[in-house]
């Protein structure tokens, strides 16, 4: 499993109720169900990935995360996960507020746009950064936002989302291995992973 996902998995206690927004084909959710016996639900907008996740035996709703999250009662989950999806979300503040309405805690992860090689590419080549974490050209990217770790922290302060945990990492070897970056994460980390609460 990808290193960023195993970091998230390490935060979820066994038996928790988990909602995974943008769960894809269900890699993380499947791991959590099997290894941590969580009661998991996923939401995925892509038909192929949603049906693949359902075929794994997961409970997954094929649909839009904003529409689907609205149906859940307050406090329906212990954790609501938004893994590598924030950069594609139209109204991130409204979504995170919704995550913290239906869940006790929110887990948010995203690729750090301000990592040094992105900066170099822009500074030296004058081109929009393309990296392993953000492998798209300007004309085919599904990502509508660029998120530096520093800006995400400012955003959480402004919107009064409490950061309970922050782990910044770099990954290598097909992203399955990696390490925690404690020093200068906004410059050196390729991903930021956050545990949020209502504050």
């Amino acid at each position, binding site marked *: 499993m990808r290193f960023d996902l195993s970091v998230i998995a390490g935060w979820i206690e066994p038996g928790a109720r988990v909602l995974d927004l943008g769960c894809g084909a269900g890699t993380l959710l499947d791991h959590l169900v099997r290894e941590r016996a969580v009661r998991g639900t996923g939401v995925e907008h892509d*038909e*192929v990935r*949603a*049906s693949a996740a*359902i*075929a*794994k*035996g*997961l*409970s*997954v*709703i*094929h*649909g839009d995360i904003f529409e*689907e999250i609205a*149906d*859940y*009662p307050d406090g*329906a989950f212990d954790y609501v996960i938004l893994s590598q999806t924030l950069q594609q979300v139209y109204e991130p503040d409204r979504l995170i507020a919704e995550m913290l309405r239906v869940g006790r805690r929110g887990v948010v992860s995203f690729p750090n746009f301000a990592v040094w090689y992105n900066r170099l590419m822009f500074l030296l080549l004058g081109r929009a950064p393309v990296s392993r974490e953000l492998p798209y050209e300007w004309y085919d990217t599904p990502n509508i936002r660029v998120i530096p770790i520093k800006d995400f922290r400012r955003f959480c302060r402004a919107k009064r989302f409490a950061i309970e945990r922050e782990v910044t990492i770099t990954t290598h070897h097909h992203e399955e291995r990696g390490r925690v970056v404690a020093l200068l994460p906004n410059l050196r980390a390729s991903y930021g992973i956050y545990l949020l609460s209502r504050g």
Partner: protein
Amino acid sequence: MSEYEVESLSGGSAGRVEKRFVTLGDPEPLGLECGRSLGPFTLAYETWGDLSPARDNCVLICHALTGDSHAAGYYSEEDRKPGWWDIMIGPGKPIDTTKYFVVCSNVIGGCMGSTGPSSLNPATGAPWAMDFPVVTMGDMVKAQKLLLDHLGVSRLLAVVGGSVGGMQVLEWAVRYPGMVAAAIPLATTCEHSALAIAFNEVARQAIMADPAWNGGNYYGAALPEYGLAVARMVGHVTYLSDEAMRKKFGRSLQDRCGLSYRFEPEFQVESYLRHQGRKFVERFDANAFLYMTKAADYFSLQQAWGDGSLVNAFARAACRFLVVSFTSDWLYPTYQSKAMVQAMKKNGLDVSFCEITADLGHDAFLLPSARLNSLVGNFLAVTQARERGAPPVSWTAPGADAAREDAHAL
């Protein structure tokens, strides 16, 4: 439900099957929603596979508006066509008859072997015709429950059905929550919309306006063939889609090069509908069509079980759900499936939902789809593993390859 001749994507034939009949509602008749009662009555049913010693592998199939108990396999060697869902049911197929004991019965009020308006009324010795009590989805499901009691099945691994069959699936999940481990409602709705009622009413009026209908008393005389054929033509339009008809027929003419400037069937779509109408008349009873469409129109899970609230209605349910809709279904559009999913979510029920891209309209649930196969096959396998407390196993279509999967996604 239309008739298609299609090839299965995987698995083998369920083989020979026999239509059986059981007399139920005797001595205690079945109390109906309309206030009347029915009994003794007959249910026609078929089964595939074997009931496990623990009696925990029964999958009940619910048929659609004009379907019957013949869901899979062949009655005889001479049979040209297998049952209506043969692509889904059989050894190695998603509803795997080597693993599950599969049961399908004809609904009461129908005309394919179960008691309905064309059956003899024991009180008069003549066909019931319009004296037959109006039956509802709830009544049909109660009759199916009596059949399962008769078969010694007290818990269903799953109830599966599309369209009107999907309504029975939903009714099962809410009426008998303790009996159902999983429910798979396909291309269906929790209540008939005004649009769906409207089409049914046009179809009923076509039958009732046929002079041969004669207030329903046509048995032993000329049948209301014209009215029933027109009713079927209306139904057929609702089972297809703009896209499906454009691709299948366009404006092509049938057996001619130019317009005739006369009122005879010229366009291919006209001759297709007439053909479907004619074929239908040979196998279906006009009064049964009236009763079946009425039952569909009356169906409202929220009215029957939730005082108008779908969330309240699903508060009774306890099973896992797999809800599937199809993009081009305009009879029971996706928003209606989403409404049931929403109510299930609000009740904390275990639900999965997928909207499958399909251009063939409402009938897509009857047609080969690697995606639908994978969803249904795996959902059943996982449900069985959970019920038996075993580690999850996955279902893979024998010989299914990725290319075919992709072809179907388009």
